[in-house]
């Protein structure tokens, strides 16, 4: 069993080696650039502060405050200024790395024996000579320790940067979490750990090699890092320069398989009919990140759902549970409030659902949520804490269906379906198009009292983008009313469970529909 698991892991690693290599490279590049910037900022700052000691504590204190901001919050906070992608990730990582380097530089320089400083002054060294020949060499072990701490911090935190579209090994980890696939998680986590160990070993080696010789260790690290980072960047800049006459449109999607498939369809369709170059940013960590990014124009459009637009983005109550009316409400609200345009919605809904296994459904003859009431004393539910807690979740169900389930357990999303299969729970909350519906033979019970607002997916674009590229509207509206819940489920299943390429799945669907040649 264990041998099999290891085999499966290595098979996956071999199959996905291109993905792993590029993710590793992105990770390395992102980490190195951040580390370099923070070294360039924090080391000189630490040196300066050691001359102005009154200013030192307040400044170091404020970097400590920056450190306390949760990394995801910091990433989100930067989107209005820097958009999504590598740039805000590098800024956030740099901010995190400042404190350890700054504090260690300051402490290291301050810790140099005053007698040595007086001796060097008495021997007629200037400030820079003192720094170069006495202070830096003696503080170097402390400074390097700070840099190493910062490096580990950066490599670790950089995995979260995947959530704002910066790529890196976090992409693999997030993929694994979404799909409840630990091999993917390991495929991201193991190289990240190795990368941290590798960096640490390099830094330690350099430090040991150059004890007592001041700038040399830092200079070596800097030169190697600059070369490493600059080479591919320079090359890609060179490559891109040939093709930048093309118009570029950026379309993003939330984290998850389904948005990735759908935005791939957008790309196929637009690129078939126009010369525009579509850049996809799949896997963005939160609705809020995407919304901020589209507001500042960092992305041009993304896949949004009507229910989310109404309740989360507009903060309104759904006026109707009828799909079309809900869509009209969302469309009108988003346009008048934010100048964002909803194009035609697709057929399927990705809404909250109450799901049971096929066996239970057949045994108890369950089709609708209202059928549950009869068995409320016998059934145990496994809900995510969010569903259990939010007013439009379980509380709304309880009220609308007068349902009082005997036993409700809250658990991790990924554990729910397994608890259901093992028989520990019989009822779970689910997203209606998620692939585990197929994997575990689940049945979504019909929301006959229409408690959950409609969640139809539709492209949401900036108005100015649609004015500049008017063809897009017609092209994407071809998807309006298409893709049934079964079709979506099937596509999700192919990607999640059979590891198919989302772009390919999208293409096959469009070809099947006759939309793509």
């Amino acid at each position, binding site marked *: 069993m264990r041998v099999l698991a290891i085999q499966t892991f290595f098979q996956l690693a071999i199959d996905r080696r291109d993905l792993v290599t590029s993710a590793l490279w992105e990770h390395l590049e992102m980490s190195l650039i951040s580390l370099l910037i923070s070294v360039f900022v924090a080391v000189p700052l630490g040196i300066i502060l050691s001359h102005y000691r009154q200013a030192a504590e307040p400044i170091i204190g404020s970097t400590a405050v920056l450190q306390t901001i949760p990394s995801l919050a910091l990433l989100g906070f930067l989107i209005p200024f820097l958009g999504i992608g590598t740039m805000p990730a590098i800024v956030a990582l740099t901010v995190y790395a400042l404190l350890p380097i700054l504090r260690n530089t300051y402490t290291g320089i301050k810790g140099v024996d005053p*007698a040595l400083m007086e001796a060097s*002054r008495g021997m007629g060294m200037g400030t820079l000579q003192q720094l170069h020949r006495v202070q830096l060499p003696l503080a170097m072990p402390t400074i390097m320790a700070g840099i190493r701490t910062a490096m580990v911090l950066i490599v670790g935190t950089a995995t979260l940067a995947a959530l704002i579209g910066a790529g890196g090994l976090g992409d693999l980890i997030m993929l694994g979490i979404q799909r409840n696939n630990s091999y993917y998680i390991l495929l991201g986590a193991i190289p990240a750990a190795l990368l941290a160990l590798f960096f640490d070993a390099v830094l330690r080696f350099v430090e040991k090699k150059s004890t007592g010789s001041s700038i040399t260790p830092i200079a070596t690290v800097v030169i190697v890092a600059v070369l490493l980072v600059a080479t591919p960047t320079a090359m890609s800049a060179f490559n891109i320069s040939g093709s930048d006459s093309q118009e570029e449109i950026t379309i993003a999607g939330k984290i998850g398989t389904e948005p990735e498939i759908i935005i791939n369809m957008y790309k196929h369709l637009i690129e078939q009919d126009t010369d525009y170059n579509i850049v996809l940013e799949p896997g963005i960590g939160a609705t809020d990140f995407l919304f901020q990014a589209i507001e500042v124009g960092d992305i041009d459009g993304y896949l949004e759902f009507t229910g989310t637009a109404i309740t989360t983005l507009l903060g309104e109550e759904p006026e109707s549970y009828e799909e079309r009316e809900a869509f009209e409400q969302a469309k009108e609200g988003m346009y008048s409030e934010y100048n964002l345009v909803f194009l035609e919605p697709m057929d399927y809904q990705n809404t909250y659902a109450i799901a049971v296994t096929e066996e239970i459904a057949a045994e108890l003859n369950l089709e609708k949520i209202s059928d549950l009431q009869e068995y409320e004393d016998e059934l145990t539910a496994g809900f995510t804490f969010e569903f259990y807690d939010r007013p439009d979740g379980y509380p709304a169900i309880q009220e609308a269906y007068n349902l009082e389930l005997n036993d409700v357990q809250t658990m991790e999303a990924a554990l729910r379906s397994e608890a259901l299969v093992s028989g520990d729970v019989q009822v779970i909350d689910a997203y209606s198009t998620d692939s585990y519906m197929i994997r575990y033979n689940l049945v979504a019970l019909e929301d006959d009292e229409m408690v959950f607002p409609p969640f139809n997916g539709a492209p949401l674009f900036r108005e100015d983008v649609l004015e500049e590229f008017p063809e897009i509207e017609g092209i994407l509206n071809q998807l309006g009313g298409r893709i049934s819940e079964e079709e979506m489920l099937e596509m999700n299943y192919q990607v999640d469970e059979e590891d198919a390429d989302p772009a390919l799945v999208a293409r096959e669907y469009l070809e099947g529909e006759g939309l793509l040649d």
Partner: protein
Amino acid sequence: MIEFQGVSKVFADGTKAVSDLNFRIEKGELFVLIGPSGCGKTTTMKMINRLIDSSDGKIFIQDKNIRDMNMKRLRWNIGYVLQQIALFPHMTIKENISIVPELVKWPKEAISKRVDELLDMVGLDPSTYRDRMPDELSGGQQQRVGVVRALAGDPDIILMDEPFSALDPITREQLQKDILDLQKNIKKTIVFVTHDMDEALALGNRICILKEGSVVQVDTPEKLLQHPSDDFVEKFIGARQDPWGAPLSEMTLYRSRTQAPLKEEVNEFLLTSHSVRAAFEKLKDSEKDSLAVFNDEKEYTGDVSYKDIVLHLEKYHFKDRGGALS
């Protein structure tokens, strides 16, 4: 060589460190600054290489005001030995010694030659010690390197700030002897700060006694002992047991004559009640190498020579090390 003219120092916090210092240090002289803690001796010394700037008055080196000189050049020409030794722990002995020669851009070969020569001078074998790190050396060896480092750039002046006070008594004595030898050979102008009167008397050509930031007396050791200018100086010297002031009865005397002379028959003699200092003075004036000593009963008890005085002083030093005043 070095001249203080009305020099005062008031620190930023208002503390008066020294006021109205006026004295002149001659070329080739070992000049000791001494006094109780807080008397301003270290401040006085550090004003010479401008580690501390005077607030008032002028300091001249070779008739040039040090304020008008380039600070780095000034310091390159003044060796500096610290109480804390302060060898740079990340540099080898050679690198430590080479700092000033490198700063003044001597050629590499000249520096190497200089380092070896200096190590030899203080009895450290260059091939053994050149490439060692400071922490591989004993405290005494380290301070030898500290002294040598101050000499490296061939400065005219050397400042020594209680250089031996952190060392054990035997090492200290050895280093004091080394300094005296060195001084004979190299003839540098040395300004030496100490709080140890024995050290001051043993090393100083002249001694400057400071009290609460003012000079009380500047004199040779002999004159200081014979003619203390006031009670403070007398107490300051007297606070230690003065081997010079001990009566000859306390000295171990040897009879060098087979036949005891009669007091009436010798015209130059000493009494057991005479002090060592008196004996020394008398010997200086006499053409003889030794003088007979008689007790109160006019009995011959032995002879005193320079050698006897030296042995007495040496014995005394070992009996009563320290003699710290502060």
